[in-house]
């Protein structure tokens, strides 16, 4: 039976860790290996950080909507902000040329490498990502 969870949280980076920890504990209970847990934790927290900092512009009157679904063989995570959205196709590759010296711009790149499927919806306001769970 898939375990679904839906919540809206305050736009506060301190909550980011708590929400992420809850998901990781649930996955740990299923016997998911440490490497996969690390990939999922990084990706989830990067998505939350992007939503809070870039989407919601760190405004405390905004919220972040989170939906997670843990299936037997897959986890699906959706993170949605209340910002103006963005065009993910215009994100520069942080590994190319002088971009490597830029301080930012690695969050989405990491997510795309660590998760199996990543898509943006609602004009970039929502990211939906999934990862196959191998025990």
């Amino acid at each position, binding site marked *: 039976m898939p375990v679904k969870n839906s919540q809206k949280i305050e736009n506060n980076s301190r909550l*980011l*860790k708590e929400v992420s920890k809850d998901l990781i504990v649930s996955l740990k209970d299923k016997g998911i290996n440490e490497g996969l847990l690390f990939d999922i934790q*990084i990706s989830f927290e990067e998505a939350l*950080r992007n939503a809070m900092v870039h989407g919601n512009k760190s405004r405390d009157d905004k919220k972040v909507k989170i939906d997670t679904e843990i299936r037997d063989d897959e986890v699906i995570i959706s993170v949605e902000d209340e910002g103006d959205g963005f065009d993910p196709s215009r994100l520069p590759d*942080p590994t190319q040329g002088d971009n*490597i010296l830029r301080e930012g711009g690695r*969050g989405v*790149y*990491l997510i795309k490498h660590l998760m199996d499927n990543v898509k943006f919806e609602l004009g970039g306001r929502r990211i939906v990502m999934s990862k196959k769970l191998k025990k």
Partner: protein
Amino acid sequence: MQIRIEENSGVSICRVKGDIDINTSPEVKKFLEPVIRGKKNKVMIDFSEVNYVDSSGLATLVEVLKNMKLYGGKLKLVSLSSKVMGLFEITKLNKLFDIKTDENSALSSF
């Protein structure tokens, strides 16, 4: 997260314990500010007790490296876990940073 610095053979060794992430990377940055202001030439960051680094942490490290390069300082990262090293490899930051497997090889390479 805990952070402290010690000197060994003219090298400033920064030992970090805990995660370097959105909540703690400002502390790391602040902690290393005097090192950069003092234009320390040889700096090593010990990752042996760091299990997690996010993109904020990577950004902070890039900023520290850039600031050190302005005065010709050398920064080495040591004892990264395989998971953290994986993040440096994905982002190709392993080519930007001088990463050593252990402290002795880092100390002898300055």
